[in-house]
Each structure stands twice: as C-alpha cells, then as structure tokens.
C-alpha cells in the first residue's frame, strides 16, 4: 500500500492520485473477496433470514481491522478521510450482490439439495 504523499498544510492537500487510486483498489479487492468468502461460509452454515446480512457488514468491518494490520496506522495519510476507509465499498451493489449470490448458491447446494 503506497502512502499518499506529502500534506503541505491543513488547508490544501496535495494528494498523489496514483497512490490514492491504488489504495482504493486494494481496499475494493479486499472487500469483494471478503464478501464472496463470507457468502460461501454463511451459505454452508445454513443461515436463514434477514440477520444473515449482519454477517456481511461484520465481515466488511473486519476489512478495516485487516487494513490496520496491513500497516495503515494513520488512515488520513493513506485514504482521504476516516470515513473513506470505513464506508468506501460497503454499500456498493457489487459486494452486496455477490454476497447474496454466493450465499444463495451454497445454501441451495447444501441445504435445499
């Protein structure tokens, strides 16, 4: 993960666009991956009902923890704001739909079969 570049003052931030974009791409990749894996896990366990979505959001929060472990000690120097790290891809339709899809596939294969 590349650091964002120097911040000269609080008023104007010079953001290195290449680094910022690559950081966001890494976060996006992690979020998609965790959505798929969580969907498979939840489907195999056979969770039924709306509270299955809670696991999805738990997994997305675990991404933030994973980012901290990866070395992102100061989020403002790697992502623009704290909110960006927390909420970037969480409500995007690709992660949610892939979670639902894999949950459905594995639930069907294991429990409705």
């Amino acid at each position, binding site marked *: 993960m590349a650091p964002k570049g120097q911040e000269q*003052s609080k008023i104007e931030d010079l953001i290195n666009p290449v680094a910022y974009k690559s950081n966001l*791409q890494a976060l*996006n*990749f992690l979020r*998609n*991956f965790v*959505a*798929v894996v969580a969907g498979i896990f939840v*489907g195999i366990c056979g*969770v*039924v*009902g*709306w509270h*299955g*979505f809670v696991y999805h959001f738990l997994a997305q929060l675990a991404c933030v923890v994973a980012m901290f472990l990866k070395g992102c000690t100061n989020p403002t120097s790697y992502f623009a704001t704290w909110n960006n790290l927390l909420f970037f891809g969480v409500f995007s*339709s*690709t*992660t949610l*739909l*892939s*979670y*639902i*899809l*894999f*949950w*459905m*596939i594995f*639930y*069907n*294969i294991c429990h*409705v*079969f």
Partner: protein
Amino acid sequence: GTGCNKLRNITLHRQKDFAYALPAAVSNRLIRRSKDFVIRSGYYKLIIVTSIARLLNMEGAHPLLLDHAVRDWVFIPLTLAIVLMKLLTQYMHLLFNTPPPTNKELKELREMQAVARAGRLRGFGRFIPESSFKMRKDYFAGEKGIFSHKAVTRSPQEAMATDPSVMVDMMKKNLTGMVPQLAMGMVVNFFFQGFVIGKVPFPLSPRFKPMLQRGIDLVSLDVSYFTSLSYYILLLFGLRGAFSLVFREDVIDETEMMRRQMNPMAASPMGVDMDAMFKSEKAALAAVDYEWELESAEERAVDILRRQLKSKKN
C-alpha cells in the same frame, strides 16, 4: 432421453408436521374471526389482525422438498454455463476492443489539445506569474485567439456519415456486450421453464413474486422460491463482483454501456461539437479569478511557523 424425464418429475412433499399445522390453524381462525371484527369495531383492527395472521402463515409455510435431479441437471450446469459465457464475453471484449482509429488531421488534434490546455490553465493558473497568465489567456481567448477561429473538427453526425469505421466499432461493441446475454437468456427461458430451482435464504414480501417466479402462477407458493430465469439474472449481476477479483481492470461493461445509452450526451471520442466547446472555454477563461500563489505565500509560511512554534512550546 431419460434426462428429460428426470427434469419434469419434480415431487412436492408437504410436511404435515404439527409445528407447521399449528400456526396455520391459528392464522386461519384469526382470519375468520377478523371478519367479525369488521362488523363490530373499526377497519383498522382488521388490518392489524390480518397482518398478524399473514405473518404467522409466512413463518409456518410448508417447505418444498425439491428433487435431487433438479440440482444435478439444472442448478450446477446453469451456473457453470453462465460463468463460462461471461468469461467468453470478457475475453472477446478484450480481444476485439481495438482503440478507435485515429484518422484525425493535425488541425483537429491541435484544437482538442488547445481545449485541454485552456482547462488546465484555468485550474492551475495560480502557480504562474501574472504576466504569463495574461499572455496565455490572450493566446486562447483574445481577439485573434485560438477560440475565436471557427473549429475545423467535424461534428459527430458528419463523422458517422463519412466514416464507416465508427459504425463497425459500435457494432463490435454491441455484439460482444448485450447480444450474447440476451441470447443466453432466451436459451435459458426455453429450456428451463416452468419449475422452481432454488430458495432464497431470506423471506421476501409478496411483491417480489412476479420478479422471482416468472412462469409460475401458483398463488400459495412461497416467495422465496425462484425460477431459472430469475436465477440467470441474479447470476449476471452477482458474478460482476467475483469477476472483478479475477480481472483487476474494469469488468462491468454492460452496465457502462447501458448507462451510456441512457445518457444522451454520450462522450464520443470524436470532437463533440467543437464550436460550442470553444465558446464555453472562452467564457470560462474570461470569468476566472486569478491570484498568484506566491503573493500569499509569506503569510501562509508565517502561519505554519507560528503553529509549529506553538506546538513545540506545549
């Protein structure tokens, strides 16, 4: 052959368990008694009672037991087929996606770059001294400036008429995008029609019924069960996420194309009406508020030093 027979022979067992019968009995009695309520008390009580009855009925819904043959012969092959088809379209798109032929002349290129440079001048003008800024502004927007000449670039309509390569490009994009998906949808609808394929893990309201159960008209069938056509569409949307893991670049091509089709001001690679762009750039350049960064640099430096000294003191 025997495969066809197995597909048609789906048994539906209703489990007459007491746990499922009880809420159904209670809810039926509630529905019958609710009609008495209408005569005695108000309409709102009927709504409350029937909604509770419906809730109980949903939880005590009889689960369908689907045949193993459906799994073997429909669910897994359909998933595999759609995954392979998506892979194929992705690769076709990568192979056939040559960049549009640059058959522009020097003048057209010059105009496009002039527009880009003017935009950059507006954005970052504060880094150059005032006289240079004025010189550049005059070069672009002045009396004899670039933007005062008539644009040489053809508008996209003329370009489409004269250049056949644009049509070929658009046809290629359409072919590798929507057409295989539509064709596959028709194939799926033809072969796997009229039966239920699986269950969605969470309960849904009855409004989702026409969406999830296209060809089936059973009123009492639980909304959580879906047919193969709706499963196909779910697969199309859900595999986007999984594919973006494998292909790191932009995978969502059909959503981009749909968005582009819905947006009438499509950004085509040709010069989109250069005259209008010239006019807008000229007006924007005249309206820019110029201030040299270096003028306020001393104050900002003092500010920063002051803050640092303050933080050092504490």
